[in-house]
């Protein structure tokens, strides 16, 4: 075998994202927890309520472990220079801001109700995502979108809005 063949055959191992192993471990733990709880369900016969939960939990545990092993074997840890970079990869600023807005929205929704909360969410999100441009335009778009949604859901389908 010529040396160049050998060099070409040695494939680069793909990089794994930070937290990938942790995510798989999360599933493994979820499966273990689910199995443990399922043991307390009525069991004993082939048609008991615990059969499927236990079966499915076992599948989750087994396959998650397989995934962990495969990921460890076949991928290379991506080197990030700092914790800040890791966080930036997992949650880019835009996503983090949207998530924050969603949390605030969830809290505020039962208090100020649907129309004001949704208008504010849409307006703030749009203005932020467009980096502060189009203040008036976005207000109009949010208003119009909200009006359409309310018209369809509240008046045609008679859904009581939160």
């Amino acid at each position: 075998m010529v040396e160049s063949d050998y060099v070409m055959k040695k494939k680069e191992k793909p990089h794994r994202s930070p937290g990938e192993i942790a995510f798989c471990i999360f599933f493994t733990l979820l499966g273990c927890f689910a199995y443990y709880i399922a043991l307390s369900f009525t069991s004993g016969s082939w048609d008991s309520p615990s059969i499927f939960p236990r079966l499915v939990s076992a599948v989750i545990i087994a396959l998650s472990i397989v995934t962990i092993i495969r990921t460890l074997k076949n991928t290379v840890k991506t080197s990030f220079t700092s914790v800040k970079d890791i966080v930036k990869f997992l949650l880019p600023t835009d996503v983090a801001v949207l998530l924050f807005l969603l949390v605030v929205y969830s809290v505020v929704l039962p208090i100020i109700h649907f129309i004001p909360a949704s208008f504010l969410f849409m307006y703030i999100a749009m203005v932020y995502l467009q980096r502060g441009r189009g203040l008036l335009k976005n207000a109009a778009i949010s208003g119009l979108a909200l009006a359409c949604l309310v018209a369809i859901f509240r008046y045609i389908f008679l859904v009581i809005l939160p």
Partner: protein
Amino acid sequence: MGTLSSFLVPILNVKLLLLVLLGTFGGIWVGAIPGLSVTMAASLLISFTFSWDIYDAIALICGVYMGGVYGGGITSILLNIPGAPAAIATGFDGYPLTMKGEAPKALGLACTVSFFGGLLGIIVLLFAAPIISRIALQVAPRDYFLLAMMGILLLTSMGSGDTIKGIIAGAVGVLLSMVGMDPSTGEMRYTFGSVYLMQGISFVPAMIGLFGVTEGLSQARDVTVAAIKQNVDKIIPSLKLLLKYLPLSLRSALIGIWIGALPGTGGDIAALIAYDAAKRTVKKPSAPFGKGAYEGVIAPESANIAAVGGAFIPMLTLGIPGDAVTAIIIGAFIIHGLRPGPLFMVETPNMFGVIVSCLLIANIAKLIIAMCSIKFFTKVIDVPRAILIPVVIILSVIGTYAIQNSLVDVYWMLGFGVLGYFMRLYGFATAPMVLGLILGPILDSNYRRAMQSVNNDPMIFLHDLVTNPISLILVVFIVYMIISQTPQWKRFTSKARTKTSASNR
């Protein structure tokens, strides 16, 4: 003769005609908007039309039904947010086509095959209803269990990402579907004493979260990406293209009719099984499945609309609903003083003709309305992400709340959305989780019902699996599905292929 003239009733009566058209138009929108479902619209229409003539009500509902099933595919293709579970499979290849700039073509194809699939479903309803209903009655709980098994196994061949990760996502979905009160014994599973968990985790908030909010958050990773320019030249598929794909469409429609005819299963499972069948039988797809193959849009869209015709079969011949919407229609019949059941066709023969006619008109109307509005719908893609993402999120919120006026559902939906975001980041597909949530209860309850019917004797259960013709066919399919995924089989078939190509030279 009475039945024959009843076919002409909706065509000659302008009011009925208009109602069908209105229903179809509304249905397309209802189907497209995530969170609004045909089932919800149908149940609203029942109360709406309480005082109407039964034919008027039926005309409207049939229109909404036909339009809605296609409508779900529109947002699935354009935004990767299925408007309904029946449209999940459409997005597997539909959304990649949009990414390639071929959304109008995908929508045009979907619309056309939806017409043909619907037509086949209606024809079968017209001519073969009694025969099919007789066979459908033979389907036992163990067969439903096997069908749901097939659905779950499809997760292994879903194609968009790692197979094993897909199964994990699906298994977690099945696990989550078991939260709540066990339907057979009333036992509380995984509720930890919480009232909210007692009612279980509905799959609709999960679907809206895992597709809508997840899509929004994932797209927010790069807001500056410009919208993909869509090629609006080729909307109506050429005759050549149509003839090429017609066999696949009709095959998929047949699958849809059968699965629709089974009480309790409908377009969602039909679309999945048709997608998988297409994946296995189409040797040279236009693109790899999962990356924008036209076949990946044709198969599910033909199957889910054909399932509509199929769902009417047990409803009209036996009074057993083929799916949720036909169950609601049975409710409408009862409200209007009719008696659905095995003698329904004998006592009210005209109803059959009117329904078939309405479905036919709705099918044609859907083709025309949808074709004309494709250009309009495609404009949605041109909206910049910065505007689309917040609107989609709020749409997801209101759509989730609309299901049962529960704020808790909205919180679940948002939670699923965040989970889905991380799942996508780490290579876990989200569709299997939704499917696990849908199929989990079918798997669990039918397995247990089957076991109970053989007095918990596993040997008799296994014996029944191979002695009953329907079960045997399903078992063979499942075994084939499992074996064909193993490396040994793939090696075997590729060796056989190279041998035949070598001998052909």
